[in-house]
């Protein structure tokens, strides 16, 4: 029978199938690994849209610097509104901690203040209140790091605020973190007592190894197994001399512990336990969210899934003395601006800023004493890229955020708004 080239190839492929399969697998793995980029965010998009919109509202955020050198300090400041729309899915922040979301200890957290109170531990926050915060960081590890401030809520988990990239330059080895003790000395906690840690561990490591080596040298495992299995006399398996060596070792171990414990106690006579306990009565900001002379009634809204567009209808009454305009809708760290109000460049992370994302059915100011029905439309690709478009599929299809009203004199009135929305799935 004549053998064709295809037959030859088929036979060859059959013989080499295993190798080809392995080669393909290796190539696939290599391509996958080559395509992997650095993971430098903190899962903020992964949380359900309604959770991010209805738990917290971060605003007035400022990063004092975005490029620093090792040991240089920088701050994240801003305001944190605990939303009245807080969802049932998350426990209210009766025990919360202002944390920093960053890829490891790239910057040291020198201090966190909430309402002016230094809060190195957890605290009690109240729904509906607004708190000013300040996070002081000290650059440690060179790199390009995405840094958030975030509120961790007990049983609720972390709720990240807006993130910003920080560039840290310099040499990691130059980093120091000096802390002044009550006894007046200053220590660098980066390397404090490292020698003591290594020395004691090494000492006991050597002692433990020596103990094992000593007994292992006494006929090893197999020899001793045979002796035990054959019923050899106990005094022959472990001799009285070996027991004496054990007793001496025990005395040495206990003596070392007792003597050096006493020396340590006298060397460090004034020590305190770890400090625990929550901070209560954190001062909230007065005159912030919902303090403006405005009455807002939510009349209903819809969310157009294909168009990534949130439409909300409000009846707004201006009870103040100046005309007001809606300048911004802020939710889940995203800022949707009314370009008629924000006419200059806003300093905010670009991926969270929709400079033309807010349009109104009536852009004219609301006069004092006037009541207007206004439809706001929030539309921007960021709504989708930040995964707020998942709202239509949430278990609690409601949105929330803060509308910022501005008077002609520059006074700002942040007002919390929100309510149920009806999704529209088909293109309109």
């Amino acid at each position, binding site marked *: 029978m004549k053998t064709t080239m295809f037959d030859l190839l088929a036979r060859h492929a059959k013989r080499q199938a295993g190798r080809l399969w392995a080669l393909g697998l290796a190539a696939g793995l290599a391509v996958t690994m080559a395509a992997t980029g650095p993971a430098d965010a903190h899962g903020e998009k992964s949380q359900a849209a309604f959770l991010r919109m209805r738990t917290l509202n971060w605003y007035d955020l400022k990063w004092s610097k975005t490029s620093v050198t090792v040991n240089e300090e920088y701050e994240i400041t801003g305001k944190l509104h605990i939303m009245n729309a807080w969802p049932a899915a998350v426990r209210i922040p009766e025990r919360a*901690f202002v*944390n920093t979301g*960053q890829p*490891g*200890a*790239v910057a*040291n957290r*020198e201090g966190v203040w909430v309402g002016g109170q230094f809060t*190195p*531990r*957890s605290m009690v926050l109240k729904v509906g209140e607004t708190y000013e915060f300040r996070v002081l960081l*000290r650059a440690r590890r060179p790199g390009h790091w995405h840094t958030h401030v*975030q509120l961790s809520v007990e049983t609720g988990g972390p709720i990240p605020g807006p993130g910003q990239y920080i560039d840290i330059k310099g040499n990691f080895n130059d980093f120091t973190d000096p*802390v*002044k*003790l*009550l006894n007046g000395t200053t220590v660098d*906690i980066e390397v*404090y*007592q*490292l020698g003591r*840690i290594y020395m*004691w561990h090494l000492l*006991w*490591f050597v*002692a*433990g190894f020596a*103990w*094992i080596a000593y*007994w*292992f040298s006494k*006929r*090893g*495992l*197999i*020899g*001793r*197994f*045979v*002796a*035990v299995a054959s019923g050899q006399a*106990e005094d022959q398996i*472990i001799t009285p001399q070996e027991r004496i060596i*054990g*007793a001496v*070792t*025990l005395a040495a*171990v206990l003596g070392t*512990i007792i003597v050096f*414990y006493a020396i*340590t*106690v006298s*060397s460090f006579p*004034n*020590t*305190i*336990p*770890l*400090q*625990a306990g929550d901070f209560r009565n954190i001062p909230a900001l007065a005159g912030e969210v919902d303090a403006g002379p405005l009455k807002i009634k939510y009349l209903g809204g819809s969310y157009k899934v294909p168009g990534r567009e949130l439409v909300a209808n409000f009846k707004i009454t201006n009870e103040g003395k100046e005309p007001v305009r809606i300048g911004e809708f802020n939710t889940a760290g995203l800022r949707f601006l009314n370009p008629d109000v924000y006419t200059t460049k806003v300093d905010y992370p670009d991926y969270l800023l929709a400079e033309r994302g807010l349009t109104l059915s009536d852009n004219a100011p609301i006069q004092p004493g006037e009541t207007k029905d206004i439809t706001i439309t929030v539309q921007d690709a960021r709504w989708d890229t930040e995964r707020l478009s998942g709202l239509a599929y949430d278990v609690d299809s409601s949105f929330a955020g803060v509308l910022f009203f501005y008077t002609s004199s520059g006074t700002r009135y942040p007002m919390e708004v929100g309510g149920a929305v009806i999704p529209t799935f088909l293109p309109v």
Partner: protein
Amino acid sequence: MLRDKSFKAGPGPVTESIPASPGIEGGAGSNPPVAAPNVGALGAVSGSPFTSRAEAAQAVKTADLLLVIALFLIMIGGYHVHFMLTAGDWDFWIDWKDRRFWPTVLPIMLITFVAAAQYFFWENFRLPFGATFVCLALLTGEWIDRYVSFWGWTFFPITLCWPTSIIPMALYIDIVMLLSKSWIITAVVGSMGFSLLMYSNNWVILAPFHQASEQYGTLMSVADIIGFHYVRTSMPEYIRIIERGTMRTFGKDVVGVSSFFSGFVSIIVYFVWWYVGKMFSTVKYMAKI
């Protein structure tokens, strides 16, 4: 096990019998040779795969070493995983090493493998190093983890994440076993001492980290400050289970109470895990030698 080993043709016939089990006199493979009743065609002794006493001794030594290294590696993995899952944070972080939970939880979780290992090494080999062996393996794994993962990958300084010193406790309970030759006494006296020694043997390292400092009007220990400064994004402060409880009547002297409580629980856990060692360890492969 060794009987199945294939061997090369030796340089010449030997006239000594090399028992596969070398006995205990004078160390591994040191049994005095006995005249061989039957010499094989290839120079090997009938019933023995070895061509000389030295080769047998070397083979047993090698087998011993392989066994002990394999056991050590297994313990690094097994004990480390167990310990990380059951007592991890108290051992990982300096701001978790408190006076109540650290001396309570750690000995109870540590005594498990210690008891099982003591059963295995003592009952089968009369080796009084079961506790030291597994604790040394655990610490080896921990230091590799702390240095490679905690420091090397995430740049947490060792001041934040040094592991608890546990070797003295292990030596103590091993020597109690050696001197008492009784697992009951070891369970009662050894487990109690094992727990009591934890805080005291670690205080030589920990004390400097419990010095006080004022931070913006708030009193903090150096350990608190280290835990606060080095950001652990996934670990908010309220996760710390420290200094909680109702032992107020003991004032500042809660370490002793915690340690004694831990000791009592450790006694019970020791009993249970001694039987775990009995049920789940085996020497059936060695019995074939």
